[in-house]
């Protein structure tokens, strides 16, 4: 295993975690619709309890994504988190509220009341995916930072942010906003698909289907223009000597240079569309599995074109040569190699997650089960 292979392997793992995380934001997407899909307390309880059995997976994937990024590409962690400060902080605030909202909402003496905690879930459900989309948008649209390793000599920060807004300027970029909106709508679509699959209440099924239709339409209206923009956009390419140059149609070139990634992307998009078709037209409840797998493939492919084929995955708008790519921002070969050995345990982890998921989900959630459950939200 060469150093370059290890860097790409860890970029793949980080990308896979990103794909899994976006899929798991069905929790946020469903929560953002608690009050629109649930018309009374019993229906809202069903929705909250359906997502409440999965929220820890989403949360844990986010934390592991952060940890894996830190361990494998510490310069990104240092530059983006310390620079685009407010985007990351706002994401964190929204997830803190979510973490307690489930356990506390139905408990007596909870200070903010059941609806108060459900509003926390809605806040997280709307702002979490949107801001994550904005943050990911900077992988393609660039960010305002300068990296200077020699700053360490004086004890100054190795990376500095060229905008006094510290990340809020990224929220104002229209293409970041569009990607943020697309991620939000995707999470809402996946959320409705998940509820359709997980809740055994016939009366709610038409509402879930309608939510899939509306959210999916808004998702496609935002995602397809973003893809068109991406395929025609400039990208930041790394030369063999490490010099960074701006290249026209860089992401289109990447797709063409990486046919497997292109295939992954197309399979992902088709799977998402098939999931929607199955749910809306054939009125089946298994759409989440196709759309979920498709989401993982699509996001994985987008991350791969952002970082592979000599591309800067975190372009600098303030200083082109400061842009981050796999070669200049990763951990040492030794660290990547050590962590690669640990990563052999990932299939085992995935296996027990699948087993646990099935154990909890069979049979799906119903009012009767909820009423008889000893632990409910």
């Amino acid at each position, binding site marked *: 295993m060469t150093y370059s292979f290890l860097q790409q392997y860890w970029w793949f793992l980080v990308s896979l975690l990103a794909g899994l995380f976006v899929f798991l934001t069905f929790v946020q997407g469903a929560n953002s619709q608690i009050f629109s899909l649930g018309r009374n307390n019993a229906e809202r309880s069903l929705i909250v309890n359906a997502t409440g059995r*999965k929220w820890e*997976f989403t*949360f*844990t994937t*986010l934390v*592991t994504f*952060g*940890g*894996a990024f*830190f*361990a494998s590409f*510490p310069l990104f*962690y*240092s*530059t983006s*988190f*310390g*620079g685009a*400060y407010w985007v*990351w902080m706002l994401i*964190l*605030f929204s997830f*803190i*509220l979510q*973490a*307690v909202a489930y*356990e*506390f909402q139905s*408990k*007596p*003496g*909870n*200070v*903010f009341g059941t609806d108060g905690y459900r509003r926390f879930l809605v806040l997280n459900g709307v702002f979490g995916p949107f801001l994550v989309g904005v943050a990911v948008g900077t992988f393609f649209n660039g960010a305002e930072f300068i990296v200077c*390793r*020699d700053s*360490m*000599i004086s004890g100054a*920060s*190795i*990376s500095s*942010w060229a905008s006094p807004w*510290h990340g809020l300027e990224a929220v104002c970029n229209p293409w970041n906003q569009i990607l943020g909106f697309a991620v939000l709508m995707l999470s809402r679509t996946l959320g409705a698909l998940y509820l359709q699959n997980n809740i055994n209440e016939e009366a709610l099924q038409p509402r879930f289907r309608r939510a899939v239709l509306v959210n999916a339409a808004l998702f496609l209206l935002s995602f397809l223009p973003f893809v068109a923009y991406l395929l025609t956009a400039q990208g930041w390419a790394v030369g063999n000597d490490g010099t960074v140059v701006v290249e026209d149609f860089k992401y289109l070139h990447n797709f063409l240079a990486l046919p497997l990634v292109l295939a992954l992307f197309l399979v992902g998009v088709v799977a998402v569309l098939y999931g929607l078709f199955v749910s809306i037209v054939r009125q089946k409840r298994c759409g989440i599995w196709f759309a979920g797998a498709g989401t993982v493939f699509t996001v994985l492919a987008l991350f791969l074109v952002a970082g592979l084929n000599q591309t800067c995955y975190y372009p600098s708008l303030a200083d082109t040569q400061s842009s981050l790519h796999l070669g200049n921002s990763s*951990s*040492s070969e*030794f660290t990547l190699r*050590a962590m690669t050995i*640990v*990563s052999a*345990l*990932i299939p085992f*982890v995935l296996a*027990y*997650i699948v087993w*646990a998921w099935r*154990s*909890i989900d069979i049979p799906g959630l119903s009012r009767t089960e909820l009423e*008889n*459950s000893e*632990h409910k939200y």
Partner: protein
Amino acid sequence: MNELLFLSRFQFALTACYHWLFVPLTLGLGIVMSVMETLYVRSGDDFWKRTAQFWQKLFGINFAVGVATGIILEFEFGTNWSNYSWFVGDIFGAPLAIEGILAFFMEATFIALMFFGWEKLSRRAHLASTWLTVLGATISAWWILVANSWMQHPVGMEFNPETVRNEMLDFFAVAFSPTAVIKFSHTVLSGWMTGAVFVIAVSCWYLLKGRNMDFAKRSIKVAAIVGLIGSLGCMGAGDASGVDIAKTQPMKLAAAEGLMEGSDAAPFSIVPGLEIPHMLSVLATHDFNGFVPGINDITDNGYTNQQGETVESGAQKIAKGKVALEAFSDYRRLRKSDPAAAQQALTEFNEHKSYFGYGYLSSAEDLVPNVPVVYWSFRLMIGLGSFVVLIFLLGLWLGYKQQLERFKPFHYAALLALPCVYIAGQCGWIVAEVGRQPWAIQGLLPVNAGVSSLSSGHVLATTCIFALIFTALLVAEIRIMLRAIREYQA
């Protein structure tokens, strides 16, 4: 100290202190409830099932806030300490990633089975889920304490002048350093003490109220055994920690004792003016006449350590650190234009690179942490911790004599022990973290060179938001807990 540095440290301290309110209860209560569920599975007695379920309910309430406060700490290394993240991210990031892959998913998966699986899993599968939840939390503690121990005693790495960072050379030296083993044992077992005191205090409240008597007495017996095992281990690890700190962080030990001048017969200060002769020498070196350096030895005079090595004064180290920084600056400036001169600068840098971090300090006084805070925190930790051990012993004795119900002073003392065990835990972390100052990583990187390039206004704003949210959550948690305890009918 500049405003940004102060606020960044304050924010990290605030979030860490809040987090440590919830984690020890997760670790300790997890063990107690798992033991109770094991008793249920072995005996088939439904009493133990109901008892385990009640404690699991309180565990769940506490666990949620622990998760919420924990996510902040991981990301704060990037947001507020971005220089730190780059300078040592090659070593420090790996334990965090491994924690996520191995521990967080285990916790997240099996806690869901623990709560929702009572009717869906067999008894044994459910019991396994409960134990695996606690095991996940404990493995998580292992990796985060590996990371923290590395900050106290950095090993297994080397500075790379090309990348301007430290890089890992020996994974096992990092993951299984003696400092990590000791810190893990001391910290996790103090969590067992916290969980045990929590169960005993709640149970004593029932005894005082004359409610749930059988439930309370049997819970106390289980918790007192867990607490006593935790206490014995915690004390053993504490003793080992004293020896380890004497070797690796002598300034922290000197500050914890308020020891200005070193001595071969160093006394242990109980409180100012009351000392036990030779005791500090015994604790720090396991030798009646072992030399323990004082603050002045470390900053100004230098000394000869237990291994017979000469340790330079802080002032000398700072001077050499400045030379290292200067040589490194020359190397970076000349490496492309004048390779020969750059090589000469690199050679000089390599001679002094172990002092690199000292170059960021202005004077030897900078090496001294806040002595009164460390000194009194240490005493509070030991004093309150000892009181808690007495509660376990008394609980076991009264349980053995079947006097738990009647001996009211024990009930009040147990209620008092609850805040005491939390204060002791917080003080332990204050000794560890304030005692390490001015270093973010001992001897390698001072906090002033690790902080992000932010304006203090941004950090102040997020600190206020954290303080507001965490305080609101703490109030909500305490109210929910109290209500759940008040309403429980065994």
